[in-house]
């Protein structure tokens, strides 16, 4: 999959789908055996409002060529307004990315209801083709990070212990 040759470029797209609408719609697409391109890998979150913009950059940094975010249609959020909050962050994120020179087709927010299996298929196919046209996202590697992992280990350990207890 690391073959980045222009002619045989297979884009890697990370998708964040909300549990109630888009993830369910993707399940429906499966149940209905709607085939689509295999380039998108879905990470389930409970609500598109959980999407932290850090995740998007993390995905790009790890080698994703595109990021797709799926949430419920406006007014349909299982958590009332989470999708609107996703939209707020997405709007600003998109502007930020274009300022950083990253093509706007590499990130996409779609409202897909639980019944719209066909839309999952359509959006994934479209996005795969769009990103394929753009070619791979070759970020400049961050040469070294020193010290690599030791940093703040202790603080994080504390944080995790706390979280588990609640």
């Amino acid at each position, binding site marked *: 999959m690391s073959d980045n040759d222009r002619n045989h470029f297979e884009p890697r797209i990370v998708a964040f789908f909300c549990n109630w609408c888009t993830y369910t719609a993707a399940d429906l697409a499966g149940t209905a055996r709607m085939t689509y391109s*295999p380039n998108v890998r879905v990470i389930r979150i409970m609500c598109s409002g959980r999407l932290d913009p850090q995740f998007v950059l993390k995905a790009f940094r790890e080698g994703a060529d595109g990021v797709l975010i799926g949430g419920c249609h406006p007014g349909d959020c299982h958590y009332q307004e989470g999708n609107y909050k996703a939209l707020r962050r997405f709007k600003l994120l998109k502007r930020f990315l274009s300022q950083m020179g990253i093509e706007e087709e590499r990130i996409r927010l779609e409202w897909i209801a639980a019944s719209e299996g066909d839309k999952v298929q359509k959006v994934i196919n479209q996005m795969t083709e769009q990103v394929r046209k753009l070619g791979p996202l070759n970020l400049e590697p961050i040469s070294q990070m020193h010290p690599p992992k030791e940093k703040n280990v202790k603080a994080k350990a504390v*944080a995790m212990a706390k979280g588990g207890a609640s």
Partner: protein
Amino acid sequence: MSTAKTPSSNGKPKVGVYVCHCGINIAGKVNVQETVDFAGTLPNVTVAREYKFMCSDPGQELIQKDLREGLVDRVVVASCSPLMHEPTFRRAMIAADANPFLFQMANIREHVSWVTPDKGAATEKSKALIAAAVARIVLHKPLEKTRVPVNSNALVVGGGIAGIHAALTLADAGRKVYLVEKEPTIGGHMAKFDKTFPTLDCSACILTPKMSAVRSHPNITLWTYSEVAGVEGFVGNFNVKVRRKPRYVKEDLCVGCYECVEACVFKKGVTKDEFNVGLSKRRPIYIPFPQATPLVAVIDPESCVQIKRNKCKKTCVDACERGAIDFDQKEEIKEVEVGAIILATGFKTFDARRISRYGYGKYPNIYTSLEVERMVNAAGPTGGEVHLKNGEKPRTVGIVHCVGSRDSRTNAYCSRVCCMYSLKLAHLIKERTGAEVYNFYIDMRTPGKGYEEFYEKLLKENVHFIRGRVAEISDWATIPEEEGKLVIRAEDTLVGAVRRIPVDMVVLSVGLEPHDDADDVRRKFNISCSHEGWFLERHPKLAPVSTFTDGVFLAGACQGPKDIPDSVAQAGAAAAEALALIDKGYVELEPNTAYVQEEFCSGCKTCVALCPYSAISFNVEKNISSVNGALCKGCGTCVAACPSGALQQNLFTDEQILHEIEGVISYV
């Protein structure tokens, strides 16, 4: 074959990966062996196995054995969607004395094998999803579900046959039921029918006893002429506001004696009678029909002179000896607590005006099936007589099937009941008038007990069946025999020729559609709709009466077109599901709630206003935010916003998701 390593004992996580074949559902596309071998190479994985059906008992035992023997302490199952089997495997974890949240699913069926044409690509994608699950599960922590008690009352919305049946079932089981109906009476569409197919038993005879049972049941609170105004809370603990529209007649005083109706200053009907679908007119004060439940008069504010212009002799008030009429009645909001909700809001019929080539609304003798239902009803506007606008009996009648159905421009689906009710109407019309009856159909659909036999009966009654969808209905006569008639043009597809059939009367068998306000209703109850606008069930086969919102169930045609037997069966099922929920006494909430890591919270308050459930409050003493776990529903919006990462969400911590991202990309 499986790769099992010796259990490590240095305190590092021991992850077991179990890949399911799901028969050939997965194995037909994904190279299971290759994914298992791959999983075995991932960090922290101590066991990687495969099995034909992981969700089966032996499959679960495979996991449980590894857990008990200490080979693994956390589990990844690569199989179907977590929405399908996550509860199954979590139960298996519990049975093996493991914490159910040290578990993660990789969805390689719905998201991979069923949607990926290429085998190689499917295998690679499966590996990526497994790698992601393994990467995140290392960070999973044991969690506990919280238990919340369930209110034992139930709410049923809609008083048609489905709602009535569900309410009675729950009430008979000893539960308190609130039945809310937006019309002035319960009964729904069924109350309008004359006979029911295929048995031809009288609709009123079987329905009215159930209606009065509702009225008299000590456990049922019936609110007609009312609508649900808002729903708050969650499974087991809903808080529902019901808006009771003023009927200007005191329900507890009125005995339904009709004196007020007779006394109304209008001696004749002035407004289209809703119950007779516009075939007759009613007065401003009225009782929908003699068996209306509750048998209480209602005043229509749109046509009552007193209410509209405040000047009327108010003869109705004088006529009512019990003093039940009250022009000062105001809208009332009732608030109730319930544990479960059943939606049985039904359907509306297709508006035949939308198909202009059928001439409904233009030519006088074209009726919809519901209008004919009223016409053939002995209690209806014509006393059961079928006649034309000029009072004559029709000698030829054409029944047009699939009006608005099976057409991608209107409703693409089959409305499921029209074939059968068309047969019923054909029979009744022939019985009442002796007319020649022509049925124009695309396909005859009679799958039901006694249905095909009914079709055969009609064939023997010499009703004509023409296989062809009607192209056009007009008064365009081309030969003398057609003069003054309605001409139906259709291809007789079995003959292969176009036919023109002159008739006196046309019945349009209109399809079923979701109510206009279905979208508002579903928003209120936070459930989904299918493309067509029907309420969406949780699973078409395995959870046909549940919705994606726990505690909200579906009954009858609001979920999709249904005939009476199916509606009643589904209503019973919904009532049983609601009872199962209520009788358990408590619900367990997913522990995916947000929590504050206090030492990192600077008290910036970014999160407080973001929570739609007011679960976050500001602790003035500590000067930091705190989350009320009982109110938190686990969306994680606050977590995404928290500027110092002090807020985290169980099962979806930043770390876990970041690891998942690494996993999904870095391996393979």
